[in-house]
């Protein structure tokens, strides 16, 4: 019953919205031509009679004709141009020239708890509009943002469908979670995987303290505000988009073939004093290319979206349905997502608005077999997937890795989830100049994963004696209530905006999981725990929660549109800290000077905008585990006693907690210059920032003799990030041809200023024989690569005898640099070998329009970082296939001075520099070519707009890196840039259509 009611209400809301009132009176015809500021005709411009759903659009010559009342007002709107309202006033001809909407003075920018004219901004905020992110074939909004915002580095963590990239704004200012805060229509969330890029109206990236301080303890890593599309009063607009295409991996890794593998394996065996592995390597040809076997070169990807929006003065609505489906380029992985979004606004009176923005998402997918990429790259190429009997080959017979074909066949790893995220608000104007808004948001997430492994036997090293099923279920409940009061008044030359608010947020996450063995059969219908054997079942149920109360204040003051002042203050109370340190205060101040508005600039006509701004502020980061301040008891430390050897419960304290924990604090100074020339055809933003995070929460290593499992978290480090952010754009054109060139660039200097009490270091990134590969220590970047450096290959015994060595070197082994020159090679000779953080990131966005054709090209690049190709360094367990680079090995005096003799372990696997590669790249990230049908054609079929396009994503990557991609995200900030055999990022080729009704 309740369900039906809800459905009725929803339907009614949608239908009501379509039935906006229209009035009729004395009719007349008005016509005219719409042009841009250069006089070029604008086809497809929407013309609407204000307050009605009546309207038309211009034809290919920019001409329109419409029946109106003489008292009507026409609203001209066109994407990329400012709306213009013109009263008819009884005229029959109205020619209109539209201004590009990029004119900064009018552009509204979403900031925390409100909007601001871009011209009034004192903080560093980058805006990205819908056009920049839609039609890119991806499930992830952040993926679509890559290369479009200066100061924001977006790195895929994996090419797996549905995966979310890692986002870093202005370097890495913490040793903990450095992800930004996301604010979706006012709801504060950490995960935006439920968003589909087509619903997004704008994305604002808040980078400096002036902009982020209003988010207080949660803004230190930057804030990304996402606003979804709302309906506009007027006739119902229906937009549909669809694309379809395929993906493949363009840059496969060059591995040894069967013959080369057999030869190298024998040479390695000889070098290590083992008997040869292969009797006659020459008998093998190319063998099996396992990499190709696990990859799908035609993995389909498709997206479909339909949005209906519109409304009346009383109600606006936007209803969107979206479906996305992607097969991974690695077999066995896929992802699909369906989203419904309803963004409605109800004007209850002149003074009261009520509205909601709600998204319902369902997603599911399969994950490929665990570690499949590595298994395939390591598998023995002399063997076939199946033997002559048709059974899976035992690929371990020469000691190689598991049989990838069998790994695919026996893998069942399925997940599905729901995510509902949204809020409802009421907005009340009361008194004069006062506005009250109260918002209640909910973010409800539920995800389940089932992993089933059947009973199988391929080899003694690849088998499963009893089938098993593991089910894990995660639930998250997150609510947020925000209440803000605004005051706004313009008194003569003084403009004042004040904001005060109080917010409450509560977050609970709970995991429930279980496993059983001996599932009778492989039928998916049996993949429920009850089908398994109850004896030996396991279960687990864990949870954490946090809560927060905040007070916020902001004042904006503008004098004569020239002098801008912003002051922000937020006070946060968080449950993550013990009561003594629970509350934190986060202030910021900013000033701006619109030089271009000064009287003395009025004659300098080519300067349309010139603004200098500066800000300082202090923001916090509380992204640490809940309960780090409260010492807990570790359970499941069970002992075994008794005649029948029974498990007896054990538990004790094994951790030291730190009740003195407090916030990490980031102080950031930003100085920015905004420039607009030639009617803002050229715009540029240049920012210098200096961001120092102190009291960083970190587990400073303590002596093991203390006896605790892990050192306690203490506030004990500080990190500096400083650099430049640059955004530039040039718009030009002539006649039917228009173009724009956008350029973003950022530099980061990252340095740990202090760590712990004295000479502490954090060693991380453990990679087999290399041991720890990163070292975080004062004076160097976070997680800098640290290890031995090779300086050539020993060509003969004499060279070894005359050089410092580790001890067991033989001719053909790498020569280690004696960094401290003491004539010995010891662990003191390890040195800093580079940073995973690029010095410079760069993006270039080109856009061209000629008549009905359009094209966009997006490039991005980075330089100055190192990537650890850890996959190549991980050997020695068994005989594994070799990267083709091993063919360049030393095999006799003079054969190589870079690539050592071939071995499976030993000194050559302990030298970090051997496996470090430059992470520089230049990537053609996206190319799109489009064609819009002429209005003359579309109007005949009663369609406003039809556009076809072809898109290529990740078309070309120029890089010296030998793995799949030098963009290696993932890992913690103290051990990143390590390629352990990452899921490759695919290139995709799609065709699409956009329809507007």
């Amino acid at each position, binding site marked *: 019953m309740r369900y039906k009611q809800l459905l009725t209400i929803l339907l009614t809301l949608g239908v009501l919205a379509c039935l906006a009132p229209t009035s009729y009176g004395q009719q007349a015809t008005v016509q005219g031509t719409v042009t841009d500021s250069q006089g070029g005709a604008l086809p497809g411009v929407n013309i609407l009679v204000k307050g009605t759903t009546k309207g038309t659009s211009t034809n290919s010559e920019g001409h329109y004709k419409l029946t109106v009342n003489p008292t009507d007002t026409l609203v001209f709107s066109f994407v990329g141009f400012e709306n213009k309202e013109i009263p008819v006033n009884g005229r029959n001809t109205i020619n209109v020239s539209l201004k590009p909407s990029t004119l900064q003075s009018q552009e509204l920018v979403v900031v925390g708890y409100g909007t601001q004219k871009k011209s009034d901004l004192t903080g560093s905020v980058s805006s990205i509009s819908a056009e920049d992110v839609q039609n890119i074939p991806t499930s992830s909004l952040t993926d679509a943002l890559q290369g479009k915002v200066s100061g924001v580095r977006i790195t895929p963590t994996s090419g797996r469908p549905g995966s979310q990239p890692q986002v870093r704004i202005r370097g890495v200012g913490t040793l903990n979670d450095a992800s930004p805060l996301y604010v979706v229509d006012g709801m504060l969330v950490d995960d935006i995987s439920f968003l589909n890029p087509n619903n997004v109206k704008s994305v604002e990236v808040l980078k400096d303290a002036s902009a982020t301080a209003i988010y207080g303890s949660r803004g230190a890593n930057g804030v990304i505000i996402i606003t979804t599309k709302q309906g506009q009063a007027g006739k119902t607009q229906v937009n549909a988009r669809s694309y379809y295409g395929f993906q493949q991996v363009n840059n496969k890794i060059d591995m040894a073939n069967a013959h080369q593998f057999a030869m190298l394996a024998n040479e390695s065996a000889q070098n290590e004093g083992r008997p040869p592995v292969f*009797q006659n390597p020459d008998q093998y040809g190319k063998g099996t290319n396992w990499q190709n076997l696990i990859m799908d070169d035609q993995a389909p990807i498709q997206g479909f979206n339909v949005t209906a929006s519109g409304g009346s003065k009383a109600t606006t609505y936007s209803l969107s349905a979206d479906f996305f489906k992607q097969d991974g380029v690695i077999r066995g992985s896929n992802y699909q997502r369906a989203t419904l979004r309803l963004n409605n606004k109800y004007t209850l*009176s002149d003074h009261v608005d009520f509205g909601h923005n709600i998204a319902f998402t369902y997603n599911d997918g399969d994950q490929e077999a665990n570690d499949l990429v590595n298994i395939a790259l390591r598998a023995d190429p002399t063997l076939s997937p199946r033997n002559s009997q048709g059974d899976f080959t035992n690929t371990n017979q020469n*000691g190689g890795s598991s049989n990838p074909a069998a790994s695919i066949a026996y893998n069942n790893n399925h997940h599905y989830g729901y995510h509902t995220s949204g809020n409802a608000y009421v907005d*009340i104007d*009361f008194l*004069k100049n006062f506005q*009250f808004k*109260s918002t209640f948001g909910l973010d409800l997430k539920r995800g389940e994963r089932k992993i089933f492994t059947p009973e199988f036997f391929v080899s*003694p*090293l690849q088998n499963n004696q009893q089938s098993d099923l593991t089910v894990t279920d995660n639930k998250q409940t997150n609510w947020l209530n925000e209440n803000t*009061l605004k005051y706004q008044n313009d008194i003569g030359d003084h403009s004042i905006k004040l904001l005060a608010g*109080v917010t409450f947020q509560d977050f609970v996450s*709970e995991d429930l999981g279980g496993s059983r063995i001996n599932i009778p059969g492989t039928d998916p219908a049996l993949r429920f725990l009850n089908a398994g054997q109850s*004896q*030996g079942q*396991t279960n687990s*149920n*864990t*949870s954490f*929660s946090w*809560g927060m*109360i905040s007070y916020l204040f902001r004042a904006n003051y503008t004098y004569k549109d020239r002098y801008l002042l912003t002051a922000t203050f937020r006070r946060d*109370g968080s*449950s993550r800290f013990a009561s003594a340190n629970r509350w934190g205060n986060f202030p910021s101040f900013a000033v701006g000077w619109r030089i271009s508005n000064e009287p003395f600039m009025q004659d300098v006509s080519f300067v349309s905008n010139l603004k200098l701004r500066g800000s300082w502020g202090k923001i916090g980061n509380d992204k640490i585990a809940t*309960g780090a301040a*409260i*010492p*807990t*008891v570790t*359970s*499941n*430390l*069970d*002992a*075994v*006693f*008794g*005649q029948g*050897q029974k*498990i*007896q*419960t*054990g*538990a*004790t304290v*094994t951790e030291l*907690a730190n009740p003195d924990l407090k916030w990490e604090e980031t102080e950031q100074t930003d100085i920015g210059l905004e420039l607009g020339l030639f009617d803002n055809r050229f715009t540029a933003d240049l920012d210098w920032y200096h961001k120092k995070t102190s009291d960083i929460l970190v587990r400073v*290593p303590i*002596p*093991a*003799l*203390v*006896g605790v499992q892990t050192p306690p978290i203490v506030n004990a480090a500080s990190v500096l990030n400083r650099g430049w952010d640059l955004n530039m754009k040039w718009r030009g054109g002539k006649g039917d041809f228009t173009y724009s060139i956008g350029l973003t660039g950022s530099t980061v200097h990252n340095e740990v200023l202090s760590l712990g009490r004295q000479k*502490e270091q954090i060693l991380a990134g453990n990679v087999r*024989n290399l041991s720890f590969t990163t070292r975080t220590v004062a004076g160097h970047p976070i997680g800098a690569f640290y290890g031995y450096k090779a300086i050539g290959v020993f060509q003969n015994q004499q060279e070894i005898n005359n050089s410092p060595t580790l001890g*067991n070197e033989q001719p053909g082994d790498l020569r280690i640099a004696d960094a401290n020159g003491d004539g010995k090679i010891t*662990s003191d000779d390890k040195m800093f070998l580079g940073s995973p953080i690029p010095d410079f990131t760069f993006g270039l966005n080109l856009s061209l329009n000629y008549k009905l054709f359009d094209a966009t090209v997006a490039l991005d690049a980075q330089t100055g970082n190192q990537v650890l190709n850890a996959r190549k360094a991980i*050997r*020695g367990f068994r005989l594994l296939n070799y990267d083709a680079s091993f063919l360049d090995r030393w095999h006799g005096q003079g054969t190589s001075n870079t690539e050592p003799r071939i071995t499976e*372990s030993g000194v050559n696997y302990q030298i970090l520099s051997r496996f470090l590669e430059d992470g520089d790249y230049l990537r053609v990230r996206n190319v799109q070519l489009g064609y819009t049908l002429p209005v003359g054609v579309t109007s005949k079929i009663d369609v406003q707009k039809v556009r076809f396009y072809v898109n290529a994503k990740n078309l070309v990557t120029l890089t010296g890196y030998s793995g799949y991609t030098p963009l290696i995200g993932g890992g913690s900030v103290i051990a990143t840039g390590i390629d352990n055999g990452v899921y490759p990022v695919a290139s995709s080729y799609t065709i699409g259509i956009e329809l507007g009704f």
Partner: protein
Amino acid sequence: MLNTNHYFQRFLTVLSMLLLSGLFLSGCQDQLLNKKPRGELTQASFFQTKGQAIQATNAAYQQLRNFNVHSFPWLGMTDIASDDASKGSTPADAAFLSEIDNFTFDATNGAFMSTWQAYYQGIYRANIAIQKIPDIDMDKTLRSRLVGENKFLRAYYYFFLVRAFGGVPLVTKPLKPNEFNQSKATADEVYSLIEQDLKDAAKVLPQKSGYTANDIGRATKGAAQGLLAKVYLFEKKYQEAQQMAENVINSGQYSLLPDYKKIFTPAGENTSGTIFSVQAVAVETGQGGTPYSVVQGVRGTPNLGWGFNNPTSQLLQSYEAGDPRMESTVLFVNEVLPDGSDAVRDNPNMNNERYNQKPFIPQNNPGGTWNGGANIRRLRYSDVILIAAEAAYRNGDESTARKYVNMVRKRARGRQNATVGLQVEPVANFVADTVGMHSVSGHPFIRYITSGSPADNIGLKPFDWSLQDNNSLMVVNDIDVIQSVDGKTVSTPAEFESEMKSKQPGNTISIQVRRITQTYDSNSGNTSTNTQTVLVNVTTEQLLPDITSSGQNLLDAIWHERRVELGMEQQRFFDLQREGRAGKVLRAQGKNYDENKHNVYPIPQQELDLDPNLEQNSGY
């Protein structure tokens, strides 16, 4: 719907909303900001009840099953470092253990940090229990027993540290942040804490028979006294060592299990000769097992483990002719597994010839082989008897010394008196198939012959095999399958042993074997098999004769007895150091042992880096 245009009314609306918010605030401030850990006890709510005192004690025992306490790196520092075992596995696997095997390590070798850390974690758990339990309002006897158990465990953990690293920081309570930087205590100071803890424990702990069936396996008075006897032996306090060992011997709590072989089977766990074992059980959920077995298990088919810690040929040769203990200690390649389920088939790339049989667990171990259910025998009655023997010798009482060592040898002989110096095994199915004679499957064949023994002298041949054709083909070079003894047909090893039981030293017996030999032609890839019947007459000798020697020979005999009685039980390396002959013995095996530094391992480098008050051991 709100339909007023009056500011005042709207103002009231907002005001009431603000008031509601205010109520909300006051109502939920506590709920939002005072979050308790969910599903976890906090330190403040623990150490309140008897149950929690037991749980905290159990947690201190639990660390005994830790990977680093009694498995991978520890096996390296105890057995692999010694002359009894080589690293095993593949040459490249776990290079840090090769460094220990060869004494080429430095202070950065991961084994030192892992064990150091794990043992100090055990000490922390014992310390916090020793600190907190006395304040709990509970049964007094149980309370002092629990404190005693924790003191026993603390002593146990320190006893490893002091032998491995020499003087180490003496941490006897949970440390505060300003106490994290500790200096080393001297070895003597560590030993005196160990002595005191064990004395305290011995006072309050019940004898083995004093525990209820549910608590079998907890530290006992006998365990505290036995361990203390060993501690005294390492301190060369021989009077105290003998006295303490004899306390255990005379307690009437222990006896030597007649069948040595049974000690290391599941049925042998917690039997009459067990003084202290790390208790482990394999349950599906995995929280009772140890990795001790999987680390040492066969690498190959059946895939029971990683194949580390392989008995050396020197260990094999150290067994006297026919010593049945070798069969319980060494698991040969191609040997039928102790549970009879399969036979060892080594991964051809390993080239390992044998494995440690004592930690063997069946392949169908619940929860997988990683979850080993075998108890780790840490103090056996025979160990204490041999401590008594050695201490008695040092105290000048050679007859008592001989009495004790001969007790151990008598048990080792079992019910046999005479031997010809060979070890038999049943023929594995696939070996029988290889030689094309399924009929010999299960029959006794000659697995090993002690060099110079009667069987060796008469020309009987131990099993010899090789791999051909790219390691894919097994060729049996020689196998002597025993058919009869003194004309009596024997078709199983048990029948052979039973025949031998009636023989006395000096008897001449006739043994008939079917000798199967294969030859492989590498050109054609063909194998040809020949069989012949061989009948030999051989004179038996005394099996493990009583020790009658004196002086240094007697001491050598006692040391030898420790080696073979406790073979592959992680005693040998520290024994060699205690006996003062580690350098001589290990260098003879080609190891780079240097008395000037290797008498203790280095303090882990990482710990030195973190604690400026620590000093490295000399020589490193």
